[in-house]
Structure formats: C-alpha cells, structure tokens
C-alpha cells in the first residue's frame, strides 16, 4: 500500500475515533445508561413491570374480596373501614415487600427514560410545575405505608399518563416530591416508588 493511502487511512480512523468520543456520553455520565426510549429492551422491561402489576392487582383483588364490598353510594364509615381494613390485609400479605418489587430495576430504568423524554420536551417545565403544585418534598415514604391525609394528591398531566404503561384500576401513578409512587387507590397506601425521578 502506498504511504499516502496508509496516512489517509490513519487520519480517517483517527477522525472517526475522535468523533465517536465527542458524540458519545462518557461512561460515568447519567446519559451513558440511557439508550433511546422505546427500544426493544425498554419494551421488554416495561412488559416485566406490567407483569408485576398484574400480580399486585390479583393479590389486591383477592384480599378485597374478603371484605364486604363498598356500594357505589355509601357512608363515610363504610368507606373508611374498608380502606383501612384493606390496607391492613395488604400489609399482612406484603410483609416482605420492598422498594423495586413492582418498579423492577429494568422497569425503573425504562420509566426514567420515558420521564426524561417528557420533561426535556417543550412542555417539560410546565409538566413539572403542575406536578409540584402543592407537592411537599419532605414526606417520608414506606412501602405499604399510608399516603398521608395531609398531603394532596399530585396532579398527573394527561400527556405524561399517556406515555406511561397503563395501570390496573386499583393503582395510580402519583408524585410525592420528586418521587413517583404507585398509589393503591382503594387502600390509600404506597405500593412502590421510585426515588428522585423528577429532573432538578
């Protein structure tokens, strides 16, 4: 090979390597672990998350059937009794439950990527503002713990809910401060949560 071609090939290779380093995130940057959302890996991860949700919903329904049903029109006594009895049953049957059981690690990563996309979009600041409206950051959270009566429910923008995996009827996504929680809407308890998922 003529020396001129060797030199050109070396230059092209060097340029390609340099370009790669310049465009790609460094190994320790937050973006390093964030491939494009909706990749096949994310789809699989979210499917795993949905499977966990189904398991939770089955348990929830099994336990709720042990209690007298709440009529569509009833008294606060009946509502409150039902809510607290269900919370107690869930706690008894989820004694070993810990953070990450429903938001599996892979599922959590996929959801973080979805939220990154949503919040870095043109309406991201508005979404965050809506979510953080009357949303205190200092509340302690515990799996199976009651969502504090003194903490308002965070407002969930329609645009965000449309991007997240659909939940069974028993569960809702809510934020408490920067944490995304799965709220059991019938027992008013925290089924699982992800720490610090809202961008600063």
């Amino acid at each position: 090979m003529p020396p001129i071609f060797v030199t050109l090939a070396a230059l092209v290779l060097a340029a390609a390597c340099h370009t790669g380093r310049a465009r790609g995130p460094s190994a320790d940057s937050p973006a390093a672990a964030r491939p494009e959302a909706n990749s096949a890996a994310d789809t699989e991860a979210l499917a795993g998350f949905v499977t966990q949700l189904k398991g939770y919903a089955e348990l929830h329904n099994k336990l709720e059937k042990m209690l007298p049903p709440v009529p569509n029109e009833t008294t606060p006594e009946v509502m409150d009794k039902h809510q607290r009895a269900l919370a107690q049953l869930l706690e008894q049957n989820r004694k070993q439950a810990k953070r990450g059981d429903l938001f599996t690690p892979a599922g959590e990563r996929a959801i973080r990527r979805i939220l990154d996309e949503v919040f870095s979009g043109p309406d991201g600041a508005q979404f965050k503002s809506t979510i953080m409206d009357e949303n205190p950051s200092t509340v302690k959270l515990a799996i199976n713990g009651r969502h504090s009566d003194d903490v308002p429910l965070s407002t969930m923008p329609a645009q965000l809910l449309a991007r997240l995996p659909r939940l069974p009827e028993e569960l809702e996504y809510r934020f408490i401060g920067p944490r995304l929680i799965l709220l059991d809407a019938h027992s008013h308890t925290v089924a699982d949560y992800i720490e610090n998922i809202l961008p600063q």
Partner: protein
Amino acid sequence: MHIRGRLKVLLLAAALAGGCIAQSTRGSVAVDASAGQKPTTPAAAETPMPNRPDSLKFAVLGDFGTGSRGQLQMAAEMARVHERFPFEFVITVGDNLYGSERAQDFTQKFEIPYKPLLDRGVKFYATLGNHDSRDQTHYKLFNMEGKPYYTMKPSKQNVKFVALETTYLVPEQLKWAEQELEGSREDWKIAYFHHPPYSSGNRHGSDATIRSPLEPMFVKHNVSVVFTGHDHFYERVRPQQGIVYFVVGAGGQLRSGNIMRASALTAKGFDTDYSFLIAEISGDEMFFNAIARSGAVVDSGVITRRK
C-alpha cells in the same frame, strides 16, 4: 353574539362611569352587570336573577371542606340565598374535604355546614380536587355513584353537565369525555372540574397541562361554560374561544389578594372574601350571580349559549 337590551343600558351606564368590563367573543357573551369594583346589595335582601319557575337553578361551590368558621358562614349564606332562589342542586369543583377523611370529617366539613340545604333536598354533585381521596366517589351525598368522572342531566331545561377528574386525566377519561360531548344533543354543555385552564391566580394560575387536552374538545363540541376551582378566589375569565371560564374556589378557603391585578384574563375578580355562585338557565341564557360570605353580589351577568 347577543347582548340583552336591559344589560346594554347597564353596560352603557357603567362604561360612562368607567367601571364596567364587558367582553365578547364569537358565540358567547358575558356581561358584568354589577358594573363596579365594590360588592352590591346583599343577595338575601332581594330576589336575584329572573328566578323563573321553569328555569334550571343551581349553585357552584369549590374548595370548601375545611370545617372552618369561614366555611360555616359561607354555607349559612348559601342557605339564606336558597330561601329566595331555590337552586335544585350544587355542583362542586373539588377540594371537598381538606385533611383527613374519617367519618367525623365528612360530618364536620360537609354535613353540618350544608345541613339546611341537605334538609331541603338540595343535591350535591361533586368532582374531585387534589385534596380529595378517590373514596369520595362512593359517598352517597356527593352523588358520584362510584365514578370519578360522569355526566349529569337535570330534568329541567336541556342541559348536560360533564364532571371531570383533572388530577388524573388518563387517556380513557379523555376518550370518554370526547364521546360524551360528541354524542350530546343538549343545548347547553357545561363542564366542571377542579383545575382551571384559565386563572389569574398568583398561587396556581392557568394550568396549560389541563387546557391542552380539554380546550380543543370543548371548542369542538360547543361547551358554553366551564366551572373550576383550585385558586381560592372568584374569577370570571374573559371568554376564551367563545367559552366562559369561571374559577369558584373560595367556598371555605381564601387566598386574599391573590388575583394578579394586571392579568388580561380577568373579566371580574373577587378575592377578599369567601364566595360561591348561583346560576339560572332559561332557554338560551344563563344568568349568574357570584355571592360573597357577606351576602354581597360581587359579580353578575348573563351568558348566551354557544350554538
């Protein structure tokens, strides 16, 4: 577009006095007939609005469930108004109960304050705010029948109310709302929910994340009026794309001085006392009075429905 003759006179007089605000956009008109910054006569001292026998009369209440003295006083004023203006039902725009929701809370924050109305058979049709547990949908006196969003069609006049749950606007709810509005043949379509798409509140203000999915639907399907709360004051917003938006969020909470004075949105605002609203639909017109705890009428006017 239509302004009634009597109000035209008032409008002219008020314009001459320099104290009148009137706005109109395509398909809808709201006129401030109170024509001044100061509250006018106590509502209980006169029979408000046309008060026609065959009209639909209702009240709007928001952000009330505190159990405070202010809420009790406001509720007492509602009962006084009801004696002269027998509204059939109250729609609530959320934050029905603040804090805990044990049985005694429902008693102290709802049943005791509104007992005179409840005893007279006045029904409450609630929506949920961010302070409300989903369980409230099962509370008999809120008439939600277990549903966070629903429609309601009174027997009088040709009106459909669409109650939405704006803290959790899942795609299913939006699809449902679209279908309900699309299929509606009623003359009047009125939506009510907690978060204001338009508000001049310094604390909360307009919520664009709510407005974005809902407003196109309302415009497309001829919703005439939207009632909201969340910001703790009364505001009638200048018509937006033909729709009149109200913030009625001071039924038991008050954020005094919170309306941004420079806001271009405000047709009429009142943020120095608790308030609620009464409305009367008769044919193509909806008359309304906003009433303060003192009984003063702080805003009034008439809206012609969109067609």
